């Protein structure tokens, strides 16, 4: 069992979640409540990681983070090392490929709040932030919970993009999914099997628990 890879995956999933969640909430709220002309294009762009092969996304990210790109040069000047093949690069990639998993459930949850409730909050004298905190976020909570679980579980198991952008540096970019691949290549089936089982159990338990919680919340919220 490669505990370093397991810890790194957990750390990556947690950091990704912490970075992505506020951004996803803001984007989802904006998309849910604002009608505008190019909306399908923005939604399509955000959903791209769902349909693109991970290698395509990984390739573009690698090019964007490499030493020849403005982003890569700027980061190297700032941090002293390249963005590609680093944990930070992995977080950036992970945030990007998890966007649809985080944004979509939250957007659906915000869309489920009736405009009458939003308007009632305004008529109650609540400011935008008060209405968001007291009314909209509590009502969108099941969606936020689903998004968090999906993002966490998906980051734990992501392979293609991580391999393209991060490579295979132990303790830095070697996540559990890459470690399983590595162990299988070197015929260490015992380690690969136990890590695969652990990943599967963690994913199953997290998703099942979140589904159960969401279901309970929805039942409680539903108007008679």
């Amino acid at each position, binding site marked *: 069992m490669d505990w370093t890879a397991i810890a790194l995956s957990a750390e990556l999933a947690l950091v990704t979640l912490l970075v992505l969640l506020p951004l996803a909430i803001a984007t989802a709220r904006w998309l849910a409540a604002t009608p505008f002309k190019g909306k399908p294009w923005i939604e399509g762009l955000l959903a791209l990681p769902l349909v693109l092969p991970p290698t395509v996304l990984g390739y573009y990210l690698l090019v964007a983070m490499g030493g020849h790109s403005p982003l890569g040069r700027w980061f190297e000047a700032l941090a002293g090392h390249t963005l590609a093949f680093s944990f930070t690069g992995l977080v950036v990639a992970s945030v990007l490929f998890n966007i649809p998993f985080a944004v979509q459930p939250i957007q659906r949850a915000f869309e489920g709040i009736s405009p009458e*409730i939003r308007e009632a909050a*305004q008529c109650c004298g609540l400011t935008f932030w008060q209405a968001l905190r007291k009314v909209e976020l509590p009502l969108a909570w099941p969606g936020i919970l689903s998004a968090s679980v999906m993002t966490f579980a998906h980051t734990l198991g992501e392979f293609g993009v991580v391999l393209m952008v991060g490579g295979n540096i132990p303790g830095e970019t070697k996540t559990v999914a890459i470690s399983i691949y590595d162990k299988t290549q070197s015929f260490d089936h015992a380690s690969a099997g136990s890590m695969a089982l652990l990943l599967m159990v963690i994913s199953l338990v997290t998703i099942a628990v979140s589904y159960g919680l969401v279901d309970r919340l929805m039942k409680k919220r*539903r108007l008679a």
Partner: protein
Amino acid sequence: MSLKLDLSHDGPPLDFCAEIPEGRVTALVGPSGSGKTSILRALAGLLRLKRARITLGGEVWDDSHTHLRTRERPIGFVPQHYGLFPHMTALGNVEAALTHLAATERHARARHCIALAHVEGLETRHPRELSGGQRQRVALARAIAREPRVLLLDEPFSAVDRSTRKRLYLELRRLHEHLQATVVLVTHDLDEAAQLASHLCLIRHGRLLQAGPTAEVLTRPCCEQAARLLDISNVFEAQAEGAPSGRTLLLRWGPHPLRALGHLPDRPGPALRWAVLPTNVQFARKDKLWGSHLENPVPAVVEEVIELGAEAVVWLQVQDVADGRLQMRLPTRAVRRYTVVPGAEVTVCLRAADIVLLGQGDAETTL
């Protein structure tokens, strides 16, 4: 001090100008899609219009330079489905409207509003645990919590059963006596408007057709469109023959002379439209040979009688008038007493004061 509105918009179409008296209940009445709710939402600041001027006394809520945000307007709003926050208790819903108060004051004020709306004992329940009428009361308690100067009600009784609705009418009247706020009530139910509102605005296609004290608007439509909205089917054409005295006008309806109160129309042509309320058409009693019941007697034949509970609707064909199908409404017991049956020849009277001369449909305001 009154609430003045001058609104114009393309989608939904609005061209509405009215003055709503302060401290009274005013009903905005019109068919679905007539723009009533849009007017209410514009008042609440929830709908931005192409052109809007809304003032309350000297205070400008909307004009070309100003747009007061919803939360800054001294309003309480009860939307059609109440808009209660489903994750909060009844008390929590009311407290949510009191964020401008300190936490300790908030609780006491919310309880006071709950008591005013008669929902004591339900403070800890969530909206899903309340009946339609209870939800409506909680929404009302929330709407009055900020002591609004204008209370906006968007068809607040449409989702409750008849008996609950009747109880809520009484409670709203009591609450209004207590608060003395200006209430703007949107409804498509004329009976509801008649019972609750002292003033009424008739709206069609986003335009004000008629405004004034409720009793006057309901009985004296200003134009044919208003008469149709008020469900007055007795609209006919007559020829103006002259004005024998200052306020009396002589009309000819087919071969039948009619005296009406009013002036000769300004526009050219002697033809004018007039209406009479079905409840104001009276049978001439053969055994009573004097009095106002013999004013403007018109011979007719009973065509159809339909009893609707305590009220009966009778259709009569006026003799020698091609489009003279007259509707009258009277108590069912009167139909039985006078043995009104299809085919019977009767004489009906139309009192001069009950004949309403109809205009061309320009807005008429007597608020």
